[in-house]
């Protein structure tokens, strides 16, 4: 067990020296989470927009479910996916268990409801403003959804960032379906959990710092983009 001060120093040293193992873990984390968020966005953004525009029997219930699913417990998602992907499971033949792909799927499942629910709210707000004008222009439902998504683009970035924050920080699901295998499925969060339990605080802290910095960086970038957009009243 190291004392905290020396652990921090060691951690800073690791980060500053671009330690190969560290870099590999960070890059895998980014690849998994960015891919998951992208996939979740491709499904979640249109889904949210459609739910904001269409009223059909059961749409209210669907919105309640969607909002509830924002709080899906990662370990439960991990467990269900594990059952599906394991050899005996329905998706067993795909041989995806303990691969980065399985981790991407797990994070995408977790993040899609977040992006969809936030997108629905964002699009509903902007629709309140646009509805009558679009109706007068004789816009079809499909064009309405596309228009609202496009005009809400800067606000929707926030939904994507919220999704990314959830994905990159998540540990429960990826550790179950990924298995935390060294050089294969080891990401920042699972490594932090493992190294902490082994008493290797330097690596854990180093990764923690990178994780925090990345999250802050992504948020700052999006905030900057939104501020620019706000100046042109596009946001």
């Amino acid at each position, binding site marked *: 067990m190291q004392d905290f001060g020396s652990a921090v120093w060691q951690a800073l040293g690791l980060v500053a020296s671009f330690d190969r193992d560290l870099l590999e873990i960070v890059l895998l984390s980014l690849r998994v989470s960015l891919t998951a968020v992208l996939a979740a966005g491709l499904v979640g953004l249109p889904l949210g927009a459609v739910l904001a525009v269409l009223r059909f029997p059961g749409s209210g219930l669907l919105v309640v479910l969607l909002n509830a699913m924002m709080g899906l417990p990662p370990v439960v998602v991990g467990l269900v996916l594990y059952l599906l992907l394991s050899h005996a499971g329905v998706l067993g033949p795909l041989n995806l268990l303990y691969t980065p792909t399985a981790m991407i799927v797990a994070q995408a499942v977790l993040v899609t409801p977040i992006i969809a629910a936030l997108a629905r709210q964002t699009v509903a707000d902007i629709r309140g*403003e*646009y509805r*009558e*004008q679009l*109706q*007068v*222009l*004789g*816009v*079809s439902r499909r*064009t309405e959804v596309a*228009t609202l998504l496009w*005009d809400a683009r800067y606000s929707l970035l926030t939904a994507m960032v919220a999704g990314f924050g959830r994905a990159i920080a998540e540990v429960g699901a990826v550790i179950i379906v990924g298995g935390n295998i060294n050089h294969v499925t080891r990401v920042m969060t699972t490594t932090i959990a493992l190294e902490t339990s082994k008493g290797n605080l330097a690596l854990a802290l180093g990764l923690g710092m990178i994780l925090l910095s990345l999250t802050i960086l992504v948020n700052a970038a999006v905030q900057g983009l939104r501020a620019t957009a706000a100046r*042109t*009243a*596009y*946001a």
Partner: protein
Amino acid sequence: MHEAAALPVSRRAEAEGAVRPLEGLGLRVERAGRVLLDIPELRMSGSEITALMGFNGSGKSLLLRVLAGLVQPDAGTVLWAGRPPGRERARRLGFVFQKPVLLRRSAAANIRYALKVAGFPRAEIAGRTEAALASAGLQGLAGSPARVLSGGEQQRLAVARALALEPEVLFLDEPTASLDPGSTLAIEALVAGARGRGTKIVLVTHDAGQARRLAQEILFLQQGRLVERASAGQFFTGPQSEAARAFLEGRIHI
């Protein structure tokens, strides 16, 4: 053309439109037990400018929205050229709101969007956009984000966007209520120009001066009912109803 030729002469001109004449039959709108609109029969044909006037809460804006198909009445029917409103034919009319609704795009892109949705040929869109911006004196602001324009410029853009579609009917809901006199006159010039090109204008306004300058016909509403319909000259020189007299004299009418 054959269909039109078979009709009596008086109806021939009207029959050519997809949304004209505008008709309302047994229109009734209630909210929380209160009657907001109760108009047994209304028919608007021809291409004069019609102003809807009345006190706050008289139902002018509501009637405008009902006629434009934006609000579904609780009872009664709206007919555009004899048929109920439909999305495709909504493209034949324009609507300008008191607070202009502009998309989060440039001024030019706002007009291009409307033209594209209305199905104008791709080759015509650039030219028509340019002409529409020029008509509103906005050619220098084509690339500017629409929502950073001044209030007057935004409303001119909204009117230009509506007119770019060459609508048969243009509805305006207090389009100059929050504008300065210069911007108001600019909007009025656009509206008068559209009338000259054959567009029927239905305008809600509180401004008697504006109605006098623009309108040939006045519909006066009170508590959701149409209490007076007269030519502008007649209305302003000798209004028939007590409510309209009070309105014109600036009295508070209870």
